């Protein structure tokens, strides 16, 4: 896990231009949407909510500490004449995204992003599991009012479990962010 964080840090360092200090912006974004399990027979689609704190220090890069929580849907399986239901489980995550471009300002923005985080999977009858997870996706955002932005994101989220298996999710979220601080 340490190696993976180091890898991400190296990528971030590589894309930071030297002497890039300029105007800084800090925002707060609330988001919500759906989390769709990919090739998982034992859990179903659920909801996802969370908060991101976009920090834009250089023109081409915004970093986003985030917290997200998913409540996955229960899975029903019919065996003979009886239908059984399994708790879909919850996933909580906190981590850091790096996205191209700023998050505030006028106009339509399309931005790819990549992130890494600590994910905890909880499920009734099963011990909690905390693992590093990765995500990448594409967002589209616009600013209808000064300091206010809205955006739609589609992302792929993967949580390796060890033993060469993982839990994978497609997440689609809508978010609204407010620019709380802008420095010249």
């Amino acid at each position, binding site marked *: 896990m340490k190696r993976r964080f180091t890898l991400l840090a190296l990528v971030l360092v590589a894309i930071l231009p030297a002497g890039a200090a300029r105007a800084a912006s800090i925002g707060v974004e609330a988001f919500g949407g759906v989390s769709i399990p990919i090739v998982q027979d034992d859990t179903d689609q659920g909801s996802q909510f969370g908060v991101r704190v976009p920090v834009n220090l250089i023109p*081409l890069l915004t970093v986003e500490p985030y917290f997200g929580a998913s409540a996955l849907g229960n899975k029903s399986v019919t*065996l003979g004449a009886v239908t*059984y239901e399994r708790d879909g489980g919850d996933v909580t995550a906190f981590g850091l995204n790096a996205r*191209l471009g700023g998050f505030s300002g006028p106009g339509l923005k399309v931005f790819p992003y990549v992130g890494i985080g600590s994910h905890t999977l909880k499920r009734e*009858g099963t011990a909690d599991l905390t693992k590093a997870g990765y995500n990448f996706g594409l967002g589209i955002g616009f600013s209808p009012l000064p300091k206010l932005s809205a955006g739609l994101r589609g992302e792929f989220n*993967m949580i390796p479990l060890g033993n*060469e*298996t993982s839990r994978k999710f497609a997440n689609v979220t809508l978010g609204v962010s407010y620019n709380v601080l802008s420095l010249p």
Partner: protein
Amino acid sequence: MTKLRLLVLGGVAASLLATGCVLTSAQILVKFAFPPPNPLVVNVASGASSVSGLYIDLNTESDYADNKDKLKDIADLAVLGDVTNTGTGAIGVEVWLTKTNSGTLTADQVRAQGAQLWGPFNLAAGATKRIGWDESAGLFKAGKQVLIDEVKGDGQFSLYLIGPGTGAYQFQVKDGYLVLVIGAGL
């Protein structure tokens, strides 16, 4: 800007590669009905009473057979069914596992030769209760690892349903199933 995007994409690719072949894995449900008779009747007078083993050959289930060579892990498992305590005292139903087709054993032999997989599932005299999946998942014991090894091995083993201690008890299990969610490469 192009260089920046390439660096980000490279970072994503390197990060994913560092995790191994996890991208192409899946969680696949495998369900195995208890062999006949249905309901399974257990009637034990003492530890010396005979108990029939349920011989399980997962290879007869296509979901398992099709994915056996790609099997990496067990993501979830459950023992399901409707249990009726037909005796006169409260019981805690347990499931024990042996690694072979060990046939009929005494309750004492099951405890000596096998590993406790699951239970106790407590039931008052005369009561019938459906084993819920969530409850079942929480009742697995150390024998779970033996089951995982068997599932990753030849997929053949025997299950024994017995009650507590060496006293007399009787119960029956209707529409019993063993359910596995296997983590497999695709």
